[in-house]
């Protein structure tokens, strides 16, 4: 692949993306769909019938479900064939994660095992370590976990105090410390544990087997949601770890931890789509059964609004997640072809997409929260009853905004990554922002809408990007190195960037869909894009103004106000009717059908 064609992370802010460069779910091939059916069949036959027993943490049940997943090959979908896996693409990985994402606590155990439980060894392990662990992790003979968070080190992961000291004979590291919120902790056989060697400032990573002496497991945490997933605190008391179990190089742990998290964040986006579609199915099916005032509640406009908005946000998440997946698949292929170490080069690709990963993590988890919350609301009093699955979905949804890096950390990280890329000259942020300011100076009112539906949407998205660029430049100019302390401003800018990425992803999917199916078949999807872009412009205007009034003054304030006003100006949309049409289709099909 030629380097010039490769999309780089964050590039969407400074360049247009061609529909040819995005993947949309309509392009899933027969084999990928068959893998999806296998995942769905597995949930329906093995997981959903025992949902209550999973939540009661019946001894051995979750482990046996993971083992059964292994027998079907579901634990090795993306693991290379030389390690007993099936070497599938990242897109296939995301699609299977989407389907299995509907599996409540099982989905968490599965994601943990196949993601943070397996990938540090696959991507950073040496040949001996891979050969020893990966085939067994791929088949479910071994279950994996990842031990990063500590009682005093959550978002600030590098501040962990778990220590590793080389033994006098040089054969072992002796590890002491405590880790918490360890998913699969109750039964994992292999753990990637992060600790600092001697007085190092950064973490190193080690592979620990469960039966190493000195590892103590606390009882299961009592949690608000995902009750069926095992979550333990783990203590390491003079645990002797052979030196050959160090993962990567000394001091490389923090990089390993971050890169694995970048990948986990995008995958969380896929998981969330599955959960959201399930919650939508439950919502519409209830609304199609429940009568009040002698009428099915699905016929009420207030309920249609909720149903349609659930669909729009889920659809928008899907557009963005699969777009990012394709960019990553291409980048993985490029970086893997560039060097000998496939694992490290794969993670290098993820590192480049930190912006998209953080954006997906935040948008997807908040979309699911909306869907689950309104799902409960549609159920009314019954939604508050533990009898209904939507109640479980609501509780389970909440963790997504917390794990894999809180949404707050991800918002900050997102802007930080963009600015660093700008400073390194990878993204011409400041140059383009300067051009946007110049354009504003010459403007006399909002630009006239372009002719044609797609042309108009392209114009809006391009204008919204200009708002983001202006904010990035003016905030950087104002605060320089102290911008990092202005978390409210960074969060606002981050929200603008996320809205831009998702809005553009929706438009790109529409373009590709229409080229495949024609305009008639995609009318309802135009409704979704109309509503989403219209809303995104309003949200961006609000975030941008909040930011502007927080720091700008003089000419910059005037230009920002004018720019925000003009660049977020979009034509009016009859959102009531658009949402009704979307809801009517959902109500007719009685399940998510988009």
């Amino acid at each position, binding site marked *: 692949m030629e380097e010039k064609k490769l999309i780089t992370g964050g590039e969407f802010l400074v360049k247009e993306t061609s529909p040819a460069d995005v993947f949309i779910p309509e392009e899933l091939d*027969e*084999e990928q*769909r*068959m*893998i999806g*059916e*296998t995942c769905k*069949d*597995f949930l329906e*036959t093995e997981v959903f019938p025992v949902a209550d027993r999973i939540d009661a943490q019946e001894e051995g049940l979750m482990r046996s479900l993971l083992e059964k997943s292994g*027998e*079907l*090959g*579901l634990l*090795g*979908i993306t693991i290379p064939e030389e390690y007993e896996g*099936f070497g599938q693409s990242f897109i296939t990985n995301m699609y299977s994660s989407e389907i299995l994402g509907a599996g409540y606590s099982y989905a968490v155990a599965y994601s943990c095992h196949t993601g943070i439980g397996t990938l540090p060894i696959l991507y950073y392990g040496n040949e001996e370590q891979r050969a020893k662990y990966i085939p067994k992790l791929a088949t479910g003979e071994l279950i994996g976990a990842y031990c990063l968070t500590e009682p005093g080190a959550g978002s600030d992961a590098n501040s962990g105090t778990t220590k590793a000291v080389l033994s006098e004979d040089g054969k072992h590291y002796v590890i002491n410390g405590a880790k918490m919120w360890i998913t699969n902790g109750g039964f994992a056989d292999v753990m990637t544990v992060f600790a600092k060697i001697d007085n190092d400032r950064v973490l190193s990573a080690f592979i620990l087997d469960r039966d190493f002496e000195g590892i103590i497991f606390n009882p299961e945490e009592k949690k608000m949601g995902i009750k069926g997933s095992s979550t333990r605190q783990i203590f390491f008391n003079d645990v002797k770890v052979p030196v050959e179990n160090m993962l990567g190089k000394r001091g490389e742990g923090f990089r390993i931890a971050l890169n694995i998290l970048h990948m986990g964040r995008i995958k969380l986006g896929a998981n969330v789509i599955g959960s959201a579609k399930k919650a939508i199915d439950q919502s519409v099916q209830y609304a199609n059964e429940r009568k009040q005032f002698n009428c099915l509640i699905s016929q009420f406009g207030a309920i249609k609004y909720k149903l349609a908005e659930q669909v729009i946000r889920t659809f928008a998440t899907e557009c963005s997640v699969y777009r990012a997946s394709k960019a990553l698949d291409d980048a993985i292929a490029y970086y893997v072809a560039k060097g000998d170490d496939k694992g490290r080069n794969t993670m290098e690709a993820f590192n480049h997409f930190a912006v998209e990963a953080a954006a997906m993590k935040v948008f997807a988890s908040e979309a699911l929260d909306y869907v689950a919350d309104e799902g409960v609301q549609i159920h009314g009093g019954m939604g508050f009853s533990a009898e209904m699955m939507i109640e479980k979905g609501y509780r389970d949804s909440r963790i997504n905004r917390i794990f894999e890096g809180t949404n707050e950390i991800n918002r900050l990280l997102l802007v930080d990554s963009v600015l660093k890329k700008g400073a390194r000259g990878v993204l011409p942020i400041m140059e383009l922002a300067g051009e946007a300011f110049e354009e504003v100076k010459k403007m006399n009112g909002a630009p006239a809408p372009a002719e044609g539906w797609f042309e108009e949407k392209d114009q809006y998205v391009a204008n919204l990007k200009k708002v983001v660029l202006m904010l990035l430049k003016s905030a950087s100019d104002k605060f320089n190195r102290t911008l990092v302390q202005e978390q409210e401003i960074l969060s606002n800018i981050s929200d603008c960037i996320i809205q831009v990425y998702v809005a553009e992803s929706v438009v790109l999917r529409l373009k590709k869909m229409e080229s495949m199916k024609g305009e008639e078949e995609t009318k309802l999807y135009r409704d979704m894009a109309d509503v989403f872009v219209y809303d995104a412009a309003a949200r961006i205007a609000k975030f941008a103004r909040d930011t502007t009034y927080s720091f700008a003054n003089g000419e910059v304030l005037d230009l920002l106000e004018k720019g925000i006003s003009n660049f977020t100006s979009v034509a009016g949309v009859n959102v009531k009717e658009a949402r009704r049409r979307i809801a009517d289709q959902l109500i*007719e*099909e*009685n*399940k998510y*059908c988009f």
Partner: protein
Amino acid sequence: MRILVCISNVPDTTTKVKFSADNTSFDDGGVQWIINPWDELALTRAMELKEDTSNGVSRVTVVSVGPASVEPTLRKALAIGADDAIRVDGEAGDAHYVAAQLASVAGSGDFGVILCGIESSDYNGSAVGGMLSEILDVPSVSAISGLTMNGEEVTITRDIDGGKEEVSVPAPFVGVVQKGIAKEPRIAAMRGIMMARKKPLQVVPAVDAETLTETQEFAMPEPKAPCKMVEADNVKELVGLLQNEAKVL
């Protein structure tokens, strides 16, 4: 011995059924297609019989009649474990047409056991199995809930009113199976899915055969009347409603 399993490509059982504007054809837009659940049970039993090597089953072949769009369903059968697949390139017009095509395939190979589901979950005709045995001029046994093999000897269990019947039948024969024939249908494993693309899927032309029936019109069932709740102790109102509104008394 070889086993032939006849597969019908049917809409997913959760499909919202819609018809064309004049109600003469099924609107298959957006429909997800699956292996007919009864045929899937037949395939599962065929796989179970093959896996027990003492049964001497050498190969399991699946066959379906239809255009290229049925191939994903055949490949799903290959992913579940069938050894090879045959698609008869024709439109499955009616039971007679389908049975004639299946007979052509079944007659051209040395299949000892030919299995069909008792009905398809779309048109529920329950006709193909019987017609197939008639065209092939071999015995057929219907409503099979158990099938065991001992060499060439096949023992069949049938569910009959109030009990079970055990019958033996010489091969070749057509077995029409129902629920109970196999354990739960199998989930296609990743390895099976990967292998499916390498397994043979042969396309054969349709033989001349008549379509003897023609659909005149489809009709959706009448929507259910709204439910009326009556207080448990108000027998008078209940009787009145049954007499005057439901008109069943």
